[in-house]
């Protein structure tokens, strides 16, 4: 029976956090868990992906029912749960479905926030742990490298990971739409709220030039200024600071408007009509909404930022459909590779058999003709090698091509015709050590 990929797990889609934490496996215990799981030789290869949103075991084995049984048995004893619990919360995918799921996970299509970038790193770490401990073989090596390649394709060919999906990053996106580039832009943060601080950090990362911090409490302003590399001021400096600022982020606990039309209007001409982006994250609001009617003033409150996030989420989900098509393509590509690999042991055996015949015949020739020179024997051997290569060329191609559909009949026929057996040969499995590990990224 051929090996296949089996994926057993639970995620935020199937299990509540209580169930996920029950099965969560600590990074330091992963190797030990893998060792226990693989000790009875039911499971040939295994990788455990354990994050806050999912716990999944990707395994390979010849008998998928026994693999599933072994995993359920082991994990239920580990987590102290019964089979019913498993059936309620977990899913089992085999073959194509398992590979497809792995590809979707690594491409962040199965994530809570579709397109989030952390998951591919987490999958890489999980694979790395298992590989270094020796629990992966050619099949999972190939499947995981392929999964990383799919993730890269999805990221490059779709917009699934583009546009902000957090309130703080939405501020950067709006700033980019007002200013185009943020290089050289001056940011003023009013108040020392957490969200505002986070938004400023994102703006600085995106290229904003300098930060001024205006706060009622001078020590807090100083602390934040030290943290962000800015200059602290009191709230009384607000009008002067706003004359210079390009982006103003407010997040104070004030019960009245700190910025209103009478404050802003005289600044417009003094600023030479330079656009100003006001982002009011405070509730109650710090900026009078009527300010937006002023020329070149762009004002957004927390609801507007949320609208940006919601719109981006919708776009990410639309892009995810395109990504699914890439996943399907790559599942087929991996299947083709697996099918082709199934012929390899037979080809190896066939070549070995012909080589054995060659060696035996050459030995017999030398024994029966002692007068043959060394040079003549070498020429004869070269001739034999050339004949073997030529004879095997077409059958090798036929075997590889036939495996793309249904490999079994032709492989069986060749094995039967040439009386090929797997004895004393480590190439008897479809994914032998002779199958090279794929290059990273492919």
């Amino acid at each position: 029976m051929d090996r296949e990929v089996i994926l057993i797990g639970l995620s935020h889609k199937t299990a509540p956090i209580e169930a996920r934490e029950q099965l969560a496996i600590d990074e330091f215990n992963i190797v030990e868990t893998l060792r226990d799981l693989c000790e009875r030789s039911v499971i040939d290869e295994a990788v455990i992906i354990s994050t806050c949103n999912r716990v999944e075991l990707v395994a390979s084995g010849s008998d998928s029912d026994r693999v599933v049984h072994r995993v359920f048995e082991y994990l239920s004893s580990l987590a102290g749960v019964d089979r019913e619990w498993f059936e309620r919360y977990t899913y089992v995918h085999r073959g194509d479905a398992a590979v497809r799921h792995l590809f979707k996970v690594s491409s962040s299509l199965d994530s809570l926030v579709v397109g989030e970038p952390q998951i591919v790193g987490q999958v890489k770490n999980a694979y790395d742990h298992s590989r270094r401990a020796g629990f992966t073989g050619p099949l999972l090596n190939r499947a995981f490298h392929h999964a990383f390649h799919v993730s890269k394709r999805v990221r490059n060919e779709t917009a699934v990971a583009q546009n902000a999906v957090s309130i703080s990053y939405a501020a950067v996106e709006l700033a980019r739409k007002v200013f185009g580039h943020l290089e050289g832009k001056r940011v003023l943060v009013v108040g020392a709220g957490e969200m505002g601080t986070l938004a400023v950090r994102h703006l600085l990362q995106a290229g904003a030039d300098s930060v001024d911090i205006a706060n009622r409490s001078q020590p807090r302003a100083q602390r934040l200024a030290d943290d962000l590399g800015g200059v602290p001021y009191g709230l009384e400096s607000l009008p002067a600071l706003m004359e210079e600022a390009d982006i103003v982020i407010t997040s104070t606990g004030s019960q009245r408007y700190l910025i209103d039309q009478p404050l802003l209007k005289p600044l417009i001409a003094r600023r030479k009509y330079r656009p100003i982006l006001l982002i009011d994250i405070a509730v109650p609001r710090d900026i009078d909404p009527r300010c937006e009617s002023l020329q070149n003033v762009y004002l957004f409150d927390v609801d507007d930022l949320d609208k940006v996030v919601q719109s981006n989420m919708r776009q990410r989900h639309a892009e995810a459909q395109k990504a699914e098509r890439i996943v399907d393509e790559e599942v087929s590509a991996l299947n083709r590779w697996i099918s082709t690999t199934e012929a390899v042991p037979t080809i190896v055996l066939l070549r070995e058999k012909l080589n054995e015949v060659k060696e035996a015949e050459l030995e017999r020739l030398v024994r029966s003709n002692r007068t043959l020179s060394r040079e003549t024997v070498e020429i004869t051997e070269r001739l034999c090698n050339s004949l073997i290569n030529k004879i095997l060329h077409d059958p090798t191609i036929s075997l590889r091509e036939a495996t793309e559909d249904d490999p079994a009949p032709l492989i069986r026929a060749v094995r039967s015709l040439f009386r090929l057996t797997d004895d004393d040969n480590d190439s008897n499995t479809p994914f032998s050590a002779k199958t090279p590990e794929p290059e990273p990224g492919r």
Partner: protein
Amino acid sequence: MPMLTGVTATAIVFYTATTAFYVSDLFGQFDRGTSLGRFAMWISVLLAAFAAFLTYQVEGVQVFVDTRTVFIGLVLLLSVGYLAVAKADRSLQMLGAFIAPVSAILMSAFLIMQYGEVRVGERITAALVAHIAFATAGLGAFALASCTAALYLLQERMIRERSFGPLFHRLPGLEDLDSLSLKFTIVGFVVFTVALVLGITWAARIDESVLMLRIYLSGGAWLVFAVVLYFRLRSGWRGTQAAWLTLIGTVSATAVLGIYVFT
């Protein structure tokens, strides 16, 4: 003649296809729209250039004397100018959604217009040819400034109305658009000023009242841009008002071209 008609019609088809590609991408319907649009734009430019060559070489039409060559000159200026801008800053690629239809209309005008040599008798001088050439170039720059201004107004509206859909994401930032529109206006203004001076010099010698009227109208269009530039450079005017004034200026300049062609 049939060959020129065929090439021109094909160029129009390609400009129309270019428009469709850009617009479909702009509204999030077709992701590869921009790259295909750029490709189609290149083919359109080559076809327009070939049409210009046929007009000059095969048809024997004098460049910048036959008014049709003004249209094809404008098409080439707009298209090549856009391709240069889009190459320098990829975020401005969506300008193609405006440049391509304008080019398609100008090519159509080139196709359907009758032979329209400037009726100036035997008085075709180097100054006249230079005047028309500079006026065409100036109008091309103003058209580019206007397309950019139109894109600015569209993006401004998206932002003000909190319409954060595909259009919002695909259009460039306001300040980038504003600054590009200003650059095109400055270039257009300088070139148009030279055209105006050459035109006045030539018309003064001819002393025909109808020509002086055209010069006054051109002066009016020039004045609109002079006002735009004065406030933009002196007081830092920018944004919506500057964009609208740029559009008005270009409409005035285009109206002058219309009067030149049809009277």
